[in-house]
Structure formats: C-alpha cells, structure tokens
C-alpha cells in the first residue's frame, strides 16, 4: 500500500509529527543545554510542526472510512514477530490533534511560566520527550508499541514531576508516580503477554475485530481485559492507584496541565477507547470497569471538597472526571467517553493554566491566600477560570455540559439505576467543589482589611518586567482554551458523526428519557447553589458542610487513608518485612554458611597442622596404624 502518493503523504506527516519532537529532545539534551532560548525554540518549533501535521491529517481524513495501517517489522525473532508502525483512524486523528494542540499551547505558556529557571533547557527537552512519546502512543499500531510509548510517557511524567529535584517532595512525588503507574503497567504487561501468548498477535486492528478472538475462551478474555485495565487504572489514576496524581502536582504547573490533566492521564482512557471492542466482549470486565470508574469518581470528588490547594482540587477533579469517562466507556458509551475526554482536555488544561498564572504571580497554592492576595484582579485568568469551572460543572452552554449529558445518557441505559444515581451525585459534587474554589477566589474574606498585592516590593524591576512579558505569553493560551471550551460543545453532533463512524461498535445511545436533559443540569445548579450559600454570598463563613464534620473531613483530607495504607505496606511489608528478611538471609544464612564452611576449613587446618607437631614416635605409630587399617579393609 506504500506505493500511492496519498499514503506517502500520510506517512511523512506522521513521521514528522512523531519524530521531530524526539530529534529536538536529543538535540536539546546533548547540544543546546547551555542555551535556553534555542532549546525552547527547537521544542516549540517541533511541536508546531507536529500540530500542523496533525491538523493536516485530520483535515485530510475527516471522512476516513476504514483505518489505515502502516507497519514494518521492528523485531522478528523466531516465533515472535513484533510489527511497528502507525495506525490511523478517527479516534487517533482526534487524539493527536488534542495532544499536539495542548502541547503547543502549554509549551508557549511555559515560555512565560518557566522563564529564568535554571533548568529551562532541560524542561523543554523533557517536554519534547513527552510530545514524542504521547504522539507515538496515539498512533501506535500494536499494543506492544503502545506499551512501549506508554512507559516512555510515564518516564517523562517522572522526570517532569521531579523537575525541581532539589525539593524533596517533588522527587518523592515523581518516584511515587512512576512506581504506582508501574504497578498498573505490570498488570498491563502481563495482560499483554497473556494475550500475545494466546492469540499470537498484538495488532490493535486485529484485537478489535471480533472475529479474531472468537476462538478464545471468555474467562481468558475477561482475565486479559482486567489485566490490561490495570494499566489504565495506573495511568489514569483510578481507584486503587489514584493517589499519585495529587502528589504529582509538585511539578511545574504547565506540566500538570499538560500531563496530569489533559493528555497523559487521558492515555488510559484513550487505551480503553482504543480497545473498546475488545473490552466490550467481556461483560464482566465491563462491569468491573464501571464500578472502578464510579468509585474513583466519587472518592476523588470527596477529596476535592476539602482541599485548600488549588492544584490539588483540580487534580482530584481530574481523577473524578477520568472516572466519569471510564464509567461512560464501561457503560458502553463510546462516544460519551471520547467526547468527555476531548472537552475535559480543553477545560482542565484551561483550569490548570489559569491556576498557574495565579501561582506564578503569588507563589502560593492555597486558595484562601490567593484570594486574600487579590487574585481576582487579574482579569483574563479570572474570567477563564470561571469559564473553565463552569464547563467542568457541566453548565450550559459550555462544552462540559454536553459531554456530561452524553455520559448520563449512556449511564441511564444501564439496567441498574445505581450507576446513574452515582453519576448524578458526581455531577452535584463536581459543581460544588469547582464553584467552592471559584467563590473563594472571587470573594476574599480577609481576616483584616483587604490586603495589598503582596511581595510587590520583593520583586525587582527586572523580575517584574519578566513577569509582565511572561504574562502575555501565558495569557494567549488561556484565551484560546477558553474559546474552545465555550464553543466546542456546539459541535457535539458533528463530533458524534466523526467518532461514531470511526468505531465499529457504537454502544448504546439514543433512547434517552427527557428528564435526563434536566436532571444533571439541575443537580449542577444545586451544587453551584450550595457553594454560593456556603462560600459566595455575603456573610458566608466559607466553611463547607464537610468541614463541619471533622471525621468526614479528616477522612477526605487523608484521601480515605489509601496513601497511608500504601505507605504502611511499602514500609512494613516490603522494606522491613520481606526485604529485610531477604537481606538477613543473605548475610546470615547464605553468607554465614559459606563463611562458616571456609572458617571450618581453616579451623580443621589448625587441627591437622597441630597433629603434625607431635613427638616423632606418634608418627611412627600413625604409619603402623594406617597400614593396619588398610590391611583390615582388605578382609572386609
């Protein structure tokens, strides 16, 4: 198929979109570390080309009928044939567009945010690494290739979270993120190998065709689906591997916006969507996924209610929204899940970037402090953050409203009304916690008088100027993303056509009862209202209802003690338990016995040597004795 010119164009575009960031990554790390401006230029240049290629591909193949696959054999070793290539269908056309667009915006934004950081070049190097890995992940033709880049995405996440490596908490968070996602990935890897061993082919197109797996036993299918889902749980920070994501907020804010909200964590959901036909072959697995999505969504929402750290609120909200997506997909709502993925990428990136502006300016993450410092005076971010929060809460006419509605639609199609109830509760909580933040930010309740913008004196003139120019670089992405959040929802229908045509399995959608249009909206409004009562209105004490219940608030603040539990497991079971046991065994038993044998040999040497020092006649006796013994042997 490589002959026709159209394919050649596609291939070139895809290679350019994926490989250029890699080239820039290598160049930055090897050659241009000492020149921050050049590095940033390289990185942004490459991501611009990626974006252009992605959009070109999207435009070219907007009415793509059948997936296009390019593959070459990367590795063939007896009995094992690992193809490597590109798969192009509507889903990943969409994905690469989202990824490259947000990468582009965030990298531009970072010009301002990261200005003056000593690791500026390194930052852009890692950003390029991420872009490469994420774009390649989206375009992967086989599950193994996807895993390959899946891990690399994890690597860039590790490096970027721990970017400020002199901060202990940052490095700790990076390590935690890597290890926890790795735990999920181990399951993914096992599932992948299992699948390979039984089917002999990991090509995504192959796995998604029902005919290919018809001969495989259902229980096996369920098992491998569950294992692969383990990877999704890790990457998308679902229950029970959810706690790394809030910690990951230790990284620079643009990183949180890019990796830990819009794209990388969405890779899990993307994988779900990618293998949707495969997963949907096992109804048991789908139910499990649905349950996990629901649990994560609710738990994370409760955590978000009590957090004072603005980034952490958005982080919890990310988990919760990802939970929504998983729920949607688990309920068979392919379109709803992917649609929410898209809209969420936009408004969540927006939220983070806005918060980043505040944090960059006031150097604190605490909502109350930000509010007291007068964050609301920065107009563009404030407007944008309100828009973003509204989109997150699912208020019309913003994009979030449409995608939430779609999700509720697919949940409603389930037999068990419990899922829908949980979803609706989630909608309420989402609206509540997002507007809690907004109202706190908008209506400062200073203990004293309105405090002046702080630290004005502390910032030198040059630094201030840098902030100002940086502010402009940071503002544009906000405006673009806000616009997207506002407009995108109206393209629901065409989006549905685009996506729905792309996937073979549409899932259940359609017969939605009319009250479904109203219920989510009503609940979202109720959430906003409660937030208004507690935080917004004049005289409100800005104490949430949960805060009045110490037990509950403690439980939520401690993240339901999940983290504590893992800490204990790692410390007591692994570190002080098995690992210590093994070390002791190594030193005492194995080394001990070897050393013991050696010492015994030397000791016996002393004995033997001592026997040689006696009187001469003992030796004569020994000669006689041994001869006599040997002769005796003869008679036996």
């Amino acid at each position, binding site marked *: 198929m490589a002959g026709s010119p159209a394919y050649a164009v596609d291939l070139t575009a895809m290679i350019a979109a994926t490989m250029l960031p890699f080239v820039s990554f290598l160049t930055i790390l090897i050659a241009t570390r000492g020149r921050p401006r050049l590095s940033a230029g390289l990185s942004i240049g490459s991501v611009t080309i990626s974006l252009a290629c992605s959009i070109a591909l999207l435009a070219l193949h907007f009415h793509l009928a059948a997936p296009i696959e390019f593959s070459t054999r990367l590795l063939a070793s007896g009995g094992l044939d690992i193809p490597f290539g590109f798969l192009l269908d509507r889903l990943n056309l969409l994905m690469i567009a989202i990824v490259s667009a947000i990468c582009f915006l965030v990298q531009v934004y970072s010009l301002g945010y990261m200005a003056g950081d000593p690791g500026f070049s390194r930052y852009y190097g890692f950003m390029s690494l991420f872009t490469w890995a994420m774009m390649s992940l989206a375009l992967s033709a086989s599950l193994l290739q996807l895993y390959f880049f899946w891990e690399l995405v994890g690597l860039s996440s590790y490096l970027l979270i721990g970017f400020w490596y002199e901060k202990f908490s940052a490095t700790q968070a990076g390590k935690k993120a890597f290890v926890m996602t790795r735990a999920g990935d181990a399951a993914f890897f096992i599932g992948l190998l299992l699948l390979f061993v039984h089917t002999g082919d990991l090509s995504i197109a192959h796995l998604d065709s029902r005919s290919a797996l018809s001969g495989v036993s259902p229980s096996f299918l369920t098992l491998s689906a569950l294992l692969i889902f383990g990877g999704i749980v890790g990457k998308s920070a679902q229950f029970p591997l959810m706690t790394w994501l809030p910690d990951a907020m230790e990284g620079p804010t643009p990183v949180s916006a890019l990796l830990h909200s819009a794209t990388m964590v969405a890779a899990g959901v993307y994988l779900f969507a990618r293998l949707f036909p495969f997963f949907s072959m096992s109804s048991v697995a789908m139910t499990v996924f649905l349950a996990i999505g629901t649990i994560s969504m609710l738990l994370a929402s409760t955590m978000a209610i009590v957090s004072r750290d603005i980034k952490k609120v958005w982080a919890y909200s990310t988990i919760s929204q990802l939970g929504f997506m998983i729920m949607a997909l688990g309920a068979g709502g392919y379109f709803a899940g992917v649609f929410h993925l898209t809209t969420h990428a936009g408004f969540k990136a927006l939220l983070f970037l806005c918060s980043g502006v505040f944090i960059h300016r006031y150097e604190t993450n605490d909502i109350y402090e930000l509010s007291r410092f007068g964050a609301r005076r920065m107009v563009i971010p404030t407007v944008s953050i309100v828009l973003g929060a509204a989109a997150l809460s699912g208020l019309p006419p913003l994009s979030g409203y449409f995608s939430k509605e779609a999700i509720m639609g697919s949940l409603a199609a389930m037999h068990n009304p419990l899922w829908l109830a949980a979803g609706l509760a989630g909608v309420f909580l989402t609206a509540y916690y997002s507007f809690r933040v907004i109202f706190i930010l908008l209506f400062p309740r200073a203990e004293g008088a309105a405090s002046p913008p702080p630290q004005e004196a502390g910032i030198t003139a040059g630094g201030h100027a840098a902030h100002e120019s940086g502010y402009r670089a940071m503002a544009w992405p906000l405006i673009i993303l806000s616009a997207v959040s506002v407009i995108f929802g109206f393209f629901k229908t065409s989006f549905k056509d685009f996506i729905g045509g792309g996937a073979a399995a549409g899932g259940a959608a359609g017969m939605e009862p009319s009250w479904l249009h109203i219920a989510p909206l009503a609940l979202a409004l109720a959430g906003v209202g409660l937030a208004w009562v507690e935080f917004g209105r004049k005289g409100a004490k800005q104490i949430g209802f949960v805060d009045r219940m110490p037990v509950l608030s403690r439980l939520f603040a401690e993240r339901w003690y999940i983290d504590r539990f893992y800490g204990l497991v790692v410390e007591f079971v692994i570190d002080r338990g098995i690992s210590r046991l093994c070390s002791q065994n190594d030193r005492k038993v194995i080394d001990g016995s070897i050393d013991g044998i050696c010492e015994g040999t030397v000791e016996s040497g002393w004995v033997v040597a001592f026997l*040689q*020092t006696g*009187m*001469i*006649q003992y030796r*004569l*006796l020994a000669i*006689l004795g041994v001869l006599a013994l040997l002769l005796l042997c003869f008679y036996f």
Partner: protein
Amino acid sequence: MIAPFSHVLVVAGILFALGAFCAVTRRNLIMIVLGIEIMLNAAAIAFVGGSLHLDNLDGQTFVLFILAVAATEVSVGLAIIVYAFRRTGSFDPADFNLLR
C-alpha cells in the same frame, strides 16, 4: 625337621612387630634406632626363609646387603643422634620440638 615356610614368616612377623613396638614405645632415640634394626632383621629372616623356600639365591644376596645397609644406618643415625645429644643433652624424642 624342616619348619614350614609359613612358620618362618610368622616368626619374622613377630620379630617385626616387636621391633616396631620397641621403636614406637621407647622414649629414647637410641632405642628407636635399635627397634628399627630389629625390624630390618625381621625382614632379613623373611628373605632367608623365602630364599630357602624358593631355592633362589636372590634372598640371600638381599640379606648380605641388608647387613651392610644396617651398619651404615647405625653409623649415620648414631652420628646425628650423638651430635644432637651433645647440643641438647637429651635422648628424649619429646625434647625435639622446635619445628612446628
């Protein structure tokens, strides 16, 4: 009457054992040498007996040489032992324990 060869061997064996006993038990260097001489003589008896038994002269030749060698042995041995006695004043084998 002619003693059977096995009796000769038994006598030689007993003599050998006596010599060995002497060499092993007596705490005097000279007596050890004497014990060894007795062992040599036991061998000589066995040789003579064998020679007669087989009607072969090799055994007799052996005895002649054993006598000569035994004489050499005594001279070399006594030379060393006496020299040692002059230095240490002792014939007790237990006193020679420098080497360890």
